[in-house]
């Protein structure tokens, strides 16, 4: 690479993604500016950055979501560009425009592209017009008879969805014509209550589809490439938990087809920078779901199987450099899996778990990558996304990657906060996952994953507790001996004096 294009970049985010961007900057010889809210003042992203700027209290709306403060911080520090990470302001077209208006570069797509893809129904219409396959559906239907007509055309089962919808409200699966009348009435009433708009439309119902997405990179000179797919079917309430590349069901031919469709999709909106086109895949067909106009949480699995540093590419492209390379036909090389380590207790319905991380030892060894936003002593609070770190592995094939992930998960040690570690361990050992039989309903289809605990581990815990308890009881009765080696030569007097509980014993003499 030539001279660095920027000398200083402000990272408008926190946690593991801020750390990720700061690492990219440092490797490119660019200085990084971290911003932080009050509780994040000692967070790893702050400690790693070259320059740091406080931006307000814990509440995100007064810190990480306050575009004005971020732009002021960038100006104050002489930053030429702002990297938004993901979440917060990453897909906010107004913020992107404000950055440009302030004479700085937004490391992401043009605001118009963010806007075009941001509104789901508009994006869907745009894609349909561009010939990108979308899940077949009707216009909004006003009467039961219209609904029946549309259902006949689509073929059962169908899904009733609220036009104004989201979050599952007003959504109903209709398996047979007989169920349509009551489902239509209920969907309309639910939609009316939830969105003050009772209109519904029909979509073909996909049974247990997979979530498969294509990573793309585009420059402002008209060059664009795709880096293959990721499968992110293991999710809970639309939150991804495990991602992998390549997808078990995607072969070279399907990869090419999906890649070309993704490139067509981004051309339609004049896209540049890194982005992801998401699809639902079922029975050999794939349908456009939505586009994420930003860097994604799961980008590392693509980096592992291609060797491309997506964040560095994003920065380079933002500086106006041409893409300048072609994808390697040998991609994807090997297999990569990512497990999101979140501060959630999977044994208790994924309830958020907050507290101080008293101890943290990440795994290591061959093919293991640890992208973390936390460290020992960090207080995990309730204010932000529960994602603490990402554990990523790379190996020769999927089986080896699963074995490696299991090995790495067994090495991970976190004390103080409950995490999703045991969920991931359970999945790595589960037969359907190992065989690649997964869908976006995998988690609900496998309620047995965390029920009970292996008897062997339960016994180990029991034995540990008893031995520790015994240790506490035993300490006070160490026989009194003069200084010097004991008869068995193991403990000298001063060594014994520093044993836990020794003070109590002395006091008792």
């Amino acid at each position: 690479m030539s001279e660095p294009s920027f000398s200083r970049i402000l990272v408008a985010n926190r946690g593991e993604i801020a750390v990720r961007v700061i690492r990219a900057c440092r490797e490119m010889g660019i200085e990084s500016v971290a911003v932080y809210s009050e509780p994040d003042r000692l967070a790893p992203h702050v400690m790693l950055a070259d320059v740091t700027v406080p931006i307000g209290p814990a509440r995100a709306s007064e810190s990480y979501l306050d575009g004005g403060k971020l732009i002021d911080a960038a100006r104050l520090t002489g930053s030429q560009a702002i990297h938004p990470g993901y979440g917060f302001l990453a897909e906010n077209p107004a913020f992107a425009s404000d950055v440009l208006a302030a004479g700085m570069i937004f490391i992401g797509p043009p605001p118009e592209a963010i806007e075009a893809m941001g509104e789901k129904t508009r994006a869907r219409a745009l894609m349909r017009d561009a010939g990108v396959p979308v899940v077949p559906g009707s216009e909004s239907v006003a009467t039961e008879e219209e609904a029946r007509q549309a259902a006949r055309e689509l073929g059962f089962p169908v899904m009733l969805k609220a036009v104004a919808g989201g979050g599952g409200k007003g959504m109903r699966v209709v398996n047979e014509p007989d169920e349509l009348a009551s489902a239509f009435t209920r969907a309309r009433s639910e939609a009316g209550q939830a969105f003050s708009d009772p209109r519904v439309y029909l979509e073909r119902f996909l049974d247990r589809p997979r979530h498969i997405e294509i990573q793309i990179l585009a420059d402002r000179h008209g060059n664009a490439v795709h880096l293959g797919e990721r499968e992110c079917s293991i999710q809970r309430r639309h939150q991804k938990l495990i991602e992998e590349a390549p997808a078990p069901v995607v072969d070279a031919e399907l990869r090419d087809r999906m890649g070309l469709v993704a490139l067509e999709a981004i051309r339609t909106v004049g896209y540049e920078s890194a982005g992801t086109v998401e699809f639902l895949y079922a029975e050999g067909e794939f349908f456009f779901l939505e586009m994420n106009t930003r860097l994604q949480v799961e980008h590392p699995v693509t980096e592992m199987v291609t060797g491309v540093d997506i964040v560095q590419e994003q920065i380079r492209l933002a500086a106006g450099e041409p893409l300048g390379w072609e994808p390697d036909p040998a991609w994807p090389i090997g297999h990569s899996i990512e497990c999101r380590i979140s501060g959630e207790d999977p044994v208790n319905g994924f309830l958020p778990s907050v507290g101080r991380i008293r101890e943290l030892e990440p795994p290591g060894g061959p093919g293991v990558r640890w992208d973390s936003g936390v460290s020992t002593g960090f207080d995990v609070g309730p204010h932000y996304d529960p994602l603490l770190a990402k554990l990523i592995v790379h190996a020769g094939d999927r089986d080896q990657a699963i074995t490696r992930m299991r090995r790495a998960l067994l090495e991970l040690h976190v004390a103080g906060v409950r995490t999703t570690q045991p969920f991931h361990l359970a999945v790595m050992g589960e037969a359907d996952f190992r065989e690649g039989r997964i869908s976006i309903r995998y988690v609900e289809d496998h309620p047995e994953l965390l029920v009970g605990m292996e008897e062997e581990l339960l016994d180990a815990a029991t034995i540990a507790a008893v031995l520790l308890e015994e240790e506490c009881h035993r300490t006070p009765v160490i026989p009194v001996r003069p200084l010097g080696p004991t008869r068995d030569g193991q403990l000298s007097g001063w060594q014994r004096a520093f044993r836990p509980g020794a003070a109590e014993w002395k006091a008792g003499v």
Partner: protein
Amino acid sequence: MKYYVRRAGELVEVETTETGVRIAGREARAQIESVPGSERRHLLIGERGVPLSAQRTDDGWAIEIHGRTVQLSLEDERTHTIRELAPPHGVRVPREVRAPMAGLVLRVEVEEGQRVQAGTGLVVIEAMKMENEIRAEAAGTVATITVAEGQAVDPDDLLLAFAGEEGE
């Protein structure tokens, strides 16, 4: 020593031996080492190593293995026997507190008229050279104390009584 361990809703008897433990009738060689300055422990069952971390809780230990935490409440044999002898919890607030075993009253930890919470220590009885604290089963007001420090008691001797009007 023998322990009664309550875990995930079941009660397990574990006895410590010279070289390890006897758990549910099976004998196992076992030892545990602590990593200095850390919650990490290394448990050896025979030659098999189990890395875990341990934290003390009010009534036992929280043991974490590979991200899963097991809460274990422990009672040694004596405490267990005392509790077994005491009237069952929550059925009826006991008005009288009686000696669960023969022994010597070492300390009386409350005064007449004192309001106590459930779990407050009332009387300490020394038996078999061990101190046993008798605690309040429920909140209430101590009405009369019928023993004094240094006094020998037999099983079922009245130690103290709670005020009658204190309905819970």
